């Protein structure tokens, strides 16, 4: 009974709080609101972990989220409506999400990083009540990447705390299925409202084998990517009349999900900022994202928790130059993902053919994609581990976020101009 309560309290609770941050139709409020609420509650637990009071600070964050929501609410443009196509796609995504939610009740944490890093830290936080325990500080647990941002574990820790049994892990699977469903519906609604039929380009990403598989594997890659895309979509659809808080919160959530989350959020919001005619909104959102990531960054620096990837030694110019031959295998690994049906062949082929028939991708997101690919390639170049082995075990999920940006870039692309003038569609379309 308590695990069920844990699963529902850590999903429905944040959804109710987050729904106060979003105006508009109920579906948009609940889906986008779920992402916002999860970030608020998990961030509260993270700050609580830093001061050794997970539950009290998480409850305070809930209260603050509840009270602040109406003041910082995102007001979607009422004149733009998600059409019949979008509603059909959302119904399909909710049906898939319902299946995943049902399956989650019978699933353990199925994959390697789930028990090595994310859920182990969630257990530790639930037991220790803070980040001062051995899992975060002892060399015995150095394998768990102690410096990684812990937003996913802090959210999962709440489920362990409410569930009251460290041996019951299915609520964390329920949380991830909820996040995939809510994130998918929110993205479709936001994109369809602004770019109409462009929403179809999101499907080869959202329904791709890597996204669905890794969403249900207990990893942070899909949550990070969903928050990145949702934050970016909110940024692209915002106006000066709508506060940047929601976009900033979502990007802060992205920054606290994984080590590459912060640079991805900064690069993406930065690209939008550079090309945007209204720079105040992306500027504020960018500031919020960085500010949100600071507490954990400061904690790791103060406690001297080392990073295994980014160190003075791995970044030494001489070493990096010597490692440039790694670019060959890394490029081959990227290419293998783009041609595999199990990965991104559908998205890559769809995007390439769309460009060939005249779709024009957004410049800001194209830049963001290129930055993201460069960033992740750079990480593979400098890794102190065997790069071939690391590519084998990670390339299919490391590509999730940049390919998500590709999907959003195509969804927001300008369609080909018809040879014969046609009546304007109900949803206005424009690009940067």
């Amino acid at each position, binding site marked *: 009974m308590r695990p069920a309560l844990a699963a529902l309290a850590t999903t429905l609770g944040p959804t109710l709080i987050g729904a106060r941050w979003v105006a508009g139709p109920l579906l948009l409020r609940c889906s986008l609101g779920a992402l916002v609420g999860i970030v608020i509650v998990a961030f509260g637990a993270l700050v609580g972990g830093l001061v050794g009071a997970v539950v009290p600070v998480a409850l305070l964050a809930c209260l603050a989220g509840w009270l602040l929501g109406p003041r910082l609410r995102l007001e979607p443009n009422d004149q733009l409506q998600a059409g019949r196509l979008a509603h059909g796609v959302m119904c399909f995504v909710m049906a898939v999400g319902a299946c995943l939610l049902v399956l989650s009740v019978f699933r353990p944490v199925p994959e390697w990083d789930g*028990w090595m890093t994310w859920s182990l830290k969630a257990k530790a936080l639930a*037991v220790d009540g803070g980040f001062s325990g*051995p899992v975060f500080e002892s060399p015995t647990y150095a394998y768990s990447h102690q410096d990684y941002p812990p937003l996913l574990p802090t959210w999962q820790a709440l489920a362990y705390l409410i569930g009251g049994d460290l041996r019951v892990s299915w609520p964390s699977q329920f949380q991830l299925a909820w996040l995939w469903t809510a994130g998918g519906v929110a993205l479709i609604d936001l994109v369809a409202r602004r770019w109409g039929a462009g929403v179809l380009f999101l499907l080869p990403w*959202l329904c791709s084998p890597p996204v669905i*598989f890794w969403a249900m594997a207990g990893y942070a890659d899909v949550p990070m990517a969903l928050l990145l895309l949702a934050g970016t979509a909110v940024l692209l659809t915002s106006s000066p009349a709508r506060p940047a808080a929601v976009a900033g919160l979502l990007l802060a959530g992205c920054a606290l999900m994984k080590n590459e989350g912060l640079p991805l959020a900064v690069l993406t919001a930065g690209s939008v900022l550079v090309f945007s005619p209204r720079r105040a909104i992306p500027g504020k959102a960018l500031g919020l994202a960085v500010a949100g990531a600071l507490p954990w960054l400061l904690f790791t620096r103060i406690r001297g928790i080392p990073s295994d990837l980014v160190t003075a030694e791995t970044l030494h110019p001489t070493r990096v130059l010597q490692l440039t031959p790694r670019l060959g295998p890394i490029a081959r690994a990227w290419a293998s993902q783009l041609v595999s049906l199990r990965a991104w062949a559908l998205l890559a082929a769809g995007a390439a053919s769309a460009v060939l028939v005249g779709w024009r991708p957004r410049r800001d997101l194209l830049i963001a994609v290129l930055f993201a690919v460069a960033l992740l390639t750079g990480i593979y170049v400098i890794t102190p581990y065997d790069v071939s082995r690391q590519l084998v075990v990670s390339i299919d999920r490391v590509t999730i976020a940049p390919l998500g940006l590709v999907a959003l870039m195509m969804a927001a692309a300008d369609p080909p101009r*018809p040879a014969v003038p046609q009546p304007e569609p109900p949803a206005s379309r424009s690009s940067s």
Partner: protein
Amino acid sequence: MSPPLALLVAETDVPFLSNVVAAAVGTGAAVAVLRPPRAGLARMAAAPALIGAWASFVLACAMVISLGYQTRFFQQHDLREAGTAQRRTAPIPEAAVAAARAGLRSGDTWALTTPDGRCEEDSYRYIWLAFRLHPNRPDCRAPQLEVVYGVSPPAGATVVSAGAGWSVVRP
């Protein structure tokens, strides 16, 4: 060579018929959802998006079915807390994990010995067991309890519990 819709390198094979079911359900959903929208787009221009969306519906259905089979595998092997990372056998029998838990008191430390070596030398089983036995910490120099899998327990150790191929001992 695995069939093209065998999307998981998974714990268990997915029957070919399930791919047919995924294709049928996904196509049905696509027909229902993707009827030509009056969005002002020429059919030719919308074709890449429509074809991609149809195939996505099929892939999503195939993934749900694959995850269903994976979940059934976990249930059949009584894996309710941690899975097997796409391997077809559990790292350590559940009975051994239960025996280790029963033998560990609060604050006790543990170690693991397998045919691959001691503790980190068999990182797959060691890290899996560290998750299962948390909050008891591993300490491979002076453990209070040792989980021995696939090899004989060390001479002189007190066997607390044992099963087929495993034993839990106090050094």
